[in-house]
């Protein structure tokens, strides 16, 4: 039978669609496009302005800024620094994460739940604070570890924070939790029958690992590596805190320095041109990431069947394995402990018995007494709650429309909402600064909220759409057939079922919004200070105990929100 439409032309039913309407899809697409594309267009326009002019003054276009970049001798250094920094960090991060993930997910190591919870809650710790802590630990003058070294050997300590290896090590440690979560998922979702089949057919332990487990995990591991690589290339806070003093400029810090120099006029044109360069690199990496993910699909080992992974019996190795993992976790917690210590002193000093007697809450009292700090705390509360709730609401609607809608509009919405993933936060911050510089929004908390919605939208949409895709379509169809409208269906059936993922996305955005320094620092005026920017200014003064006290407060507040919710989500998803 020939495949050909023989029916005469009939009017196609326009309103007759069982999915969301085209109007709703178009509106959502427009909102996302304004959020994402608007700032980027201004960024491009600024990069093409002649040097020493303000953005949006006149209609002159020139490639001068790009010529300056390409001709300058600093470009090779910048690229090399960025590459060395990123490669070094992911090697450290991946090795640590893979080791911990294997122990936690695939062995019977004691205390594995504790380690998993510790790493999952790690997202509540701002990288800025880690940077502060590590500076106090290993700065060449009076770093605690260096002091310990000279106490035992009598020589000056060998460690220095202001070096490439220290920057790499600290960043490697700080990306470990992210890599752990991703690699843990890989280990957990691998059907143990694939391994069992290898053993049954005569394979030894080594043969099964080499021929079955590693090849199956390879695409996944590669995609995790690229993902972390992108994150490190985009990283701004640690290169700012550690790298500037060490005179190790990378692309992200260069953009910042050009737009907010200590002396002279901001060179927005050149800064924007560097931003475009970083954006292009990030986009290329993102394309690579999708290629690898696509290749991984053919090995898809997630069968959807419920199974419990085989756990390796560690036997006598259990205790050393746990000890080593505990050391790794301690390594991550160490900078927090130093800050905790410092926050109880009026002036920073090494931990000694003598210093113990001078511990007090004076710093907290003094810091909290300042009006600037109080208003910063209020601003932070407004920022994190408004931006996280708004992001999740927008992401829920967008992903619902994108997964249930049909046609190119739905696909465009999906791509558009994911695209901020490739935009480095520092570039987005720069672009938002340029767009709103001469509007009343500049200098308000509102502009920070817009910035955070834009950069966290991609993650939130991904979380929500993967939750909605997994939801069997018949569950919502059943409600419709029972006579419920779309709003009742969403409220009574869909949202209660994806509630854990919604909550998970919400605390992720909340924690990241609270710990972020990039957006608040680039858009900082004296009216929209938040805790992270106040911490940064106190550190710069330097008022180390003050910064430490605020850091401690921020971490404690975040832990108080994140830990109970994480525990609740873990319990809720076990019940299913």
């Amino acid at each position, binding site marked *: 039978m020939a495949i050909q439409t023989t029916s005469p032309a009939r009017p196609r*039913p326009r309103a*007759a669609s*069982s999915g969301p309407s085209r109007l709703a899809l178009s509106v959502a697409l427009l909102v996302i496009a304004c959020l994402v594309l608007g700032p980027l267009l201004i960024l491009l326009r600024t990069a093409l302005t002649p040097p020493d002019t303000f953005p949006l003054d006149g209609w002159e276009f020139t490639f001068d800024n790009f010529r300056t970049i390409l001709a300058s001798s600093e470009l090779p250094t910048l690229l090399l620094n960025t590459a060395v920094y990123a490669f070094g960090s992911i090697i450290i991060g991946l090795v640590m994460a893979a080791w911990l993930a294997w122990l936690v997910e695939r062995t019977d190591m004691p205390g594995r739940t504790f380690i998993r919870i510790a790493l999952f809650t790690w997202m509540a710790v701002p990288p800025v604070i880690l940077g502060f802590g590590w500076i106090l630990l290993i700065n060449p003058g009076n770093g605690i570890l260096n002091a310990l070294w000279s106490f035992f050997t009598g020589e000056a300590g060998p460690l220095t924070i202001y070096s490439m290896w220290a920057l790499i090590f600290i960043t490697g440690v700080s990306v470990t939790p992210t890599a752990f979560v991703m690699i843990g998922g890989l280990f957990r979702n691998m059907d143990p029958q694939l391994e069992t089949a290898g053993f049954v057919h005569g394979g030894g332990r080594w043969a099964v690992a080499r021929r079955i487990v590693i090849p199956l995990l390879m695409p996944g591991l590669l995609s995790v590596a690229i993902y972390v690589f992108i994150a490190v290339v985009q990283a701004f806070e640690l290169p700012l805190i550690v790298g500037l003093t060490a005179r190790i400029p990378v692309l992200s810090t260069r953009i910042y320095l050009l737009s907010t120099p200590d002396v002279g006029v901001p060179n927005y044109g050149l800064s924007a041109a560097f931003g475009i360069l970083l954006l292009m690199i990030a986009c290329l990496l993102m394309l690579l990431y999708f290629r690898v993910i696509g290749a991984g699909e053919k090995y898809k080992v997630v069968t959807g069947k419920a199974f419990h992974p085989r756990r390796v019996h560690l036997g006598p190795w259990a205790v050393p394995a746990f000890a080593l993992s505990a050391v790794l976790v301690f390594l991550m917690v160490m900078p927090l402990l130093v800050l905790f210590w410092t926050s109880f002193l009026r002036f920073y000093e090494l931990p000694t018995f003598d210093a113990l007697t001078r511990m007090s809450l004076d710093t907290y009292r003094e810091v909290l007494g300042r009006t600037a700090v109080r208003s910063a705390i209020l601003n932070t509360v407004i920022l994190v709650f408004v931006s996280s709730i708004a992001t999740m609401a927008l992401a829920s609607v967008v992903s619902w429309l994108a997964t249930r809608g049909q046609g190119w509009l739905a696909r465009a919405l999906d791509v558009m909402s994911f695209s901020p993933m490739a935009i480095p936060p520092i570039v987005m911050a720069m672009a938002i600064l340029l767009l709103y510089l001469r509007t009343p929004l500049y200098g308000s908390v509102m502009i920070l909220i817009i910035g955070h919605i834009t950069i966290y939208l991609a993650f939130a949409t991904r979380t929500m759409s993967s939750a909605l895709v997994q939801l069997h379509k*018949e569950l919502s169809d059943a409600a419709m*057939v*029972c006579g419920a409208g779309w709003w009742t269906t969403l409220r*009574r059936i869909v949202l209660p079922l994806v509630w854990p993922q919604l909550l998970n996305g919400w605390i992720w955005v909340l924690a990241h919004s609270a710990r972020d320094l990039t957006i608040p620092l680039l858009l900082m005026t004296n009216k929209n200070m938040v805790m992270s920017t106040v911490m940064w200014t106190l550190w710069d003064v330097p008022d180390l105990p003050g910064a430490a006290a605020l850091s401690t407060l921020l971490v404690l507040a975040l832990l108080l929100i994140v830990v109970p919710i994480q525990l609740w989500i873990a319990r809720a998803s076990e019940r299913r």
Partner: protein
Amino acid sequence: MLAIEHIEKTYAARKGSHPVRALRGVSFEVARGDFFALLGPSGCGKTTILQSIAGLETPDSGTIRIGDRPVFDAANSVFLTASQRMLGMVFQSYAIWPHMTVFDNVAFPLVHGRDRKPREEVRKRVMAALARVKLESFADRLAPHLSGGQQQRVAIARAIVHEPRLLLLDEPLSNLDARLRDTMREELRQIVKSLGITTIFVTHDQVEAMGMADRIAVINQGEIMQIGSPSDVYFSPRNAFVANFVGRSNTITGKVTSIERSGGQTLRRVATPIGEICSTADSEVKAGEKALCIIRPQAFSAFAAGGEENIFEGALTGQTFLGDFIDATIAVGDTQLCAVFNSYDKTPPGSTIRLTVPFDRCVIVPAD
């Protein structure tokens, strides 16, 4: 009660493939109180038809009327959403909401549907529906704590609690194990019949369709092949697809040589490789046309009883003992015929068998 006229549905081409014509002008009517089965292989479009009736899928053209009201009319842009159609439906996955108790699942249509009821009435009706599926004692259980069979009963209770005009069942038995399926088949038909709800039932299993339905529509590649009672479809298949999909059959190609009328009956003579076959069954094939002669394995008897019968002789080449009967293969010339023997009749392999089949058991259909 339900009238479908000429609905068509074409899915747009994906990259590198042709557009798929899922429905090619499907029309049928279902009378009030009927139990109607849509039977076909997977991918034949039967689920698309059911989803179009439910309002979960939009056909490209045609009309669908439930009762005297059109719920879909492409020409006049009429489209009622699923929630406006007031139906009951049992999904293939059952779609029991895992975050609710059994009671809340069943109460949903009465609490959130179009026809809302006061609390007391809801309680009474839900318990009555649960009683009908023998799950009264499970009302407060959380849905995930139920077995497959129990989940299915909850799905049925939810679909009938608001006494819908039309009940749609999407392969409701396919996820159950064989024994449970046999009991549920009886029970489901009995529940639906006692309520008198018009029911549309999608299945790929001919045993389910034969055992439960008043009428069956056999569907293949988006077209209805035949509509009729189970015995109609079995004894008088309209084409080779129906003959082979509903039960098994021997299909022998041939050519109609003559049509004779005698004593109110029409006799067709068909020349085939295994000799002339005579048929008195109703047929539309004209003299001189190519035809297929369809004979069910059960139509043969190994021992002649006399009367008007076709007779074939061949060697027994294979037999499979299946307990309830013996599946036998007999070679007549180059053609292998399949026949069913009584389990107690032992025949040595290779022996010559004489098969006889009455004229009215040979069905002549047009060759494709």
